[in-house]
Every structure is written in C-alpha cells, then in structure tokens.
C-alpha cells in the first residue's frame, strides 16, 4: 500500500520526524520496513545482517530527518537509497579480503543490480507489474495475460516490454558510483 504516497505525505512525515514525534517513527517503519529489509537482504543475503541494516537505516533517518530533500524525489526513493548504500557498504566490509578486488567489485555490482531491480519492480506502475507477474511467475503467454488483465494483446505486449525495459535500467546504473553524495553515513 501507499506506494504512491503524495509528496505532501512525505513532507509532513519529515516535519513530524523533525519535531521528534515517536508515532511518526512508527508510521515510517510500518510503511518502509519491508522495503528496507528486503533491499538489505537482497544485497547481503543474510537475515540477521538485514535486521541490522534496518536498525541502522531507521536510526539514521530518525536522527537526520532534515537530510531528506523533497525536491530531490520521494521519501520512499530516499529511504531505498540509504538502505542500499548501507547494505552495500556492509557488503564491502564483510567481503573485504575474501577475493580479488575485481571479484569484490563484481559482487557489489550484482548485488546493486539485484537490489535496484527489486526496487524497480515494487515501484513500477501496478499494471506493468501485474503483466510481468502473469507472464513470468504464472507462465501465462501474452494472449492469456491480456485476457486475464482485460486489455488488448497489443497492450499486453507493450506492458511486458515496458516492464522489462524499466527493469533493465537496474543493470545500466549498477556500475555507477556506489555512494552518491548526500547519503550520509549512519553511525
């Protein structure tokens, strides 16, 4: 739910966090905990580690609500960015010295692509997601998917292609800087 929370919700949440409202922190957790935990788990593949990242991410946000700039995008995207940044930093830490530098970089790239892909899937418009779900997980061909979704076959093809195009951007960006400015580091 609440994937499409209006920017107003984002700004208001930021204000409530800034003034130290514990109830707002609870709401923030309820909305984003599975996102944060899921991304961390995707990067680290370890539930305990993902729990820890979740604690760090919410701790960071609670201490630094002003670090969020609504002009730069949604709160959800910001939270995801922090989560991924922390998880990747942790991955680097744990993998350090376990292989060559190239192997480490490759691992980081793959983990980032996987995490971005997850984020893209959960954030893409519901109709695209539904089409992908039918075709990929339920093994429906695009004609069946069209019938299931009550759309034309053209439209079903379009949704599958567009959905995959969105998803493929996860790879395209995975190689870029791993800690963009403004992420901040949680203690």
């Amino acid at each position, binding site marked *: 739910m609440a994937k499409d929370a209006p920017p107003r919700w984002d700004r208001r949440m930021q204000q409530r966090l800034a003034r130290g409202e514990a109830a707002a922190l609870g709401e923030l957790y309820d909305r984003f905990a599975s996102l944060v935990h899921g991304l961390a788990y995707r990067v680290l593949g370890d539930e305990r580690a993902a729990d820890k990242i979740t604690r760090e991410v919410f701790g960071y946000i609670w201490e630094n609500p002003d670090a969020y700039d609504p*002009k730069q995008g949604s709160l959800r995207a910001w939270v995801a*960015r922090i989560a991924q940044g922390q998880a990747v930093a942790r991955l680097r830490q744990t993998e350090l010295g376990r292989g060559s530098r190239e192997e480490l970089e490759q691992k980081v790239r793959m983990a980032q692509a996987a995490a971005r892909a997850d984020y893209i899937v959960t954030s893409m418009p519901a109709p*695209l997601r539904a089409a992908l779900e039918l075709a990929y997980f339920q093994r429906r061909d695009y004609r069946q998917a069209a019938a299931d979704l009550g759309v034309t076959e053209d439209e079903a093809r*379009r949704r599958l292609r567009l959905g995959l195009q969105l*998803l493929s951007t996860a790879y395209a960006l995975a190689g870029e800087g791993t800690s963009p400015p403004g992420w901040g580091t949680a203690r």
Partner: protein
Amino acid sequence: MNGNGNAHHPGDGDGPGPVAPRIPAPRGAADDLGPGAAPARPEPGAHTGRPTDAHEEPSEEPPVGPASGPDHGPGSAPPSEPRSHAVLKSLLGAWALAACSAEETEAVEEHLTECAGCAEEALRLREAVSLLHPDENLDLDPLLRTRVLEGCLVRRPARIPVPLWAAPYDTETARLDALLQDFGDAEWHAPVRLKWFEDTGQQSRRTTVAGVIAHLMAVDGMVAAVLGLDDPLGPDAGAGGPHSRTERFWAASADPVTRRVREPWREQSHTLLRTVSFAGRAADTLTVDYGPVALPLADAFLERAFECWVHAGDIADAVDYPYDPPSGVHMHAMIDLAARLLPGVLAGRRRAGLAAPAQGLVAAGAPGRTLRLEIEGAGRGSWDIALDSPAAATSADHTVAEIALDAAEFCRLAAGHIAPDEAAAGQHGDREAIRDVLFAAASLSRL
C-alpha cells in the same frame, strides 16, 4: 512480486545468436536510485509522459528505448504474412519472457539475426528477466519493529512520545497489519467465525477476514469519537455498543467487505496513536463507554490491543498462519485489565441472577471474600479478585479460592474462545466462587 516460485528462465543460447554487443549499451534512463534523480519511480528512457498513466492509454505512443527508430507503435498485428519490424519489436518483451507462441518466437528470432537494434534490445530484456525472482516472502520478525524503534529512541529520545499505555495497541495493530501484508483475495474472503460468550453460552457470528478488520475499525471508532476524531460510522453514528456498531458498519459497507478496508483501518489506528501522543494530561479525563462498562482511555487502548490480538489470531487461524501471543509485558497489562474488571462483571452477573449471591454485605473498602488468580507463563502474575463487591477490599485472610491458569488460556477464556467449564484451570477452594469467576471472565468477551 508475489509469485510463488516456478521461476523459469527462457532457454538461453537457443536464439540465433544475435549480432548485438555483449554488454548492453548504457541508457540515458532516469532511475530514482541514481544520485540526484528526481522522479519517484523509474521512467522509461524516452518516455517523458506520466508513467503512472501510460497504461491507461494504450493508444499513446509507446515508450521505447533509445534503440527504437521512428517505426515504433505495435498497431494491430496483421493476421498473417511477414510481420513488420514494429510488430516484431513489440513482441520483444513477450519473447524475452517466453510468453509468445512458437510461431511468433521463431519470427522474432529470425528478425534478430537481421536487425541489430532489436537484437540489442532483446539481449537487454533477457538480461532483465534474470533479475526477476520470486518474492522470498521473508516475513519481517514482528519483534524487529520494537527493537528498531527502541534503538532509534535511544539514539534520539522522542520529544513527543507515544504514551506507555498505548504501546500494546501500537504493537498489536502493527503485527496484524504485517499479517495482512501478503494476503490475496482468497485470504481476505476466507470465512471466520467470531466467538464470544454471553450470559450462559457461547455465541458466534460468521464473517470474513475483511469483515473482521471492519469490526475492529468500527469498534476502534468508538475511541476515535471520544478523541474528537472522525467516526468511521459517520457523524450521525449516535449511541450503540460494539456489537450494534459492527452490524451497522457491515451493513453500510460493500458486500462482501473487501481488502479495501485495510487502509482506512490502519490509518485510523495510526491517527489514534498520533492523537493520544499529543493529548497529554487531557487524555486522563476521557472515558470510552462500551455500554456495560466505561473504560478510562488508557484502559480502552489496552482493551483494543487485546481485541486486535484476539482477532488477529482468529484471522491467522482462518488462513492457517502461525501467530504469536503478545509480549509478556503487554500480556500482563491485558490480564491486569481483565482482573480489574472482574469484580464489576461479577456484580453485574449477580444482579442478573447469573452468579451466586454475595455472602453478606461488605462495607466499601472493608475486606471481603477473595479469590486468588495465579497466572502462569508469559504475562504471569497473581491477582486478588474481590468476590462480594467491586468496592470491597481483597484480603489474604478472606481468600476462599484459588485458580491457576496459563496466561494464554486465561486470554482465550476472556476472549470467549473457550467455555468457562472447559478452561484448563487448576482450582482449589470454594467451587461456586471459582465457577462464578470463570464465567465472569468469559463474560468479558463480546463481539
């Protein structure tokens, strides 16, 4: 993605070996995970429209990657004959997912040998498919919420805390919401039989998972109304206890109640918590009138937390999920509330001729006959219940009976889920007093 496994990967390498670059060319696509990117969700490269709306307008120019020429737009496929580049291109997504017919697959793959643009996109989409994976459905540990929030509050204490007495409600509503997270329509419409105890026997009412959430929302609404918030039953809801409110809310809701009830229920519970956080001392003077009893606001929150847990358990049973009891601390508070309510309920049952008469008048504050309630397990504790009058004091010297019960068993009893004479209770002493207290405990329940 809530797929349930069965990830299949379209056979790699059985294509005609497209003449495409091995590494997909970087795209100029916006990605909101990228530094400084503004959009709230990823947008396709060349698509500058509104991504959310795109699907509603099939006629709109299809957004395509940079590889596309001026020839895009699937249009309607000709019934037969060689397909146009545009049609083949439109099939690339379905092809990458192995979701087109054998004949179409063949046509696409033939096209890939001669069209570098499509071959490049095909490779890119196939790679994207490998990023799809079934949702592992990793259920968040419900205890993680408490740990995370506590950790935060240590790092930076809240200036506006959630009152301590509202914590069980906060936790239980969050736990229930997490349970609902992955429910599909089948779960939302799973039948649930709500049970409670009235006077001398068990009552029940059939509804669905969604109906249970509507019930919780209707009764939480009584607390909302006391706090001056919107009543989910509308401004003219008027009087009425939990039962009649629930029936009215069900009658006024979509039939059957659907999953759409989740968000307003959750929003109301969040609003309640936010509101009491700001209420401060004013909250101490408010009471919620349930009809037979009026509870101070703090107790009403505890009662709502109890109900939330009980019904979450009903829901979990209905869909065959496990569901843990609340933490020992919260359970203790819930049992404490029940123990404090028991003398009043007992007196009410006595007036209705449902319990044995008091044995002699006890002046207010004077020690009267007492029953000792020993609760074991998480939430454990012992409580002295005044048997003769809510106003009487309890006293060790006047203890005539003792009941020992597991906390979970006591809660099942107080929720009306087990009959008083079936409760697995260790008993000792005055049998009539024991029976009366067990029946009074069951009578705490209602729809």
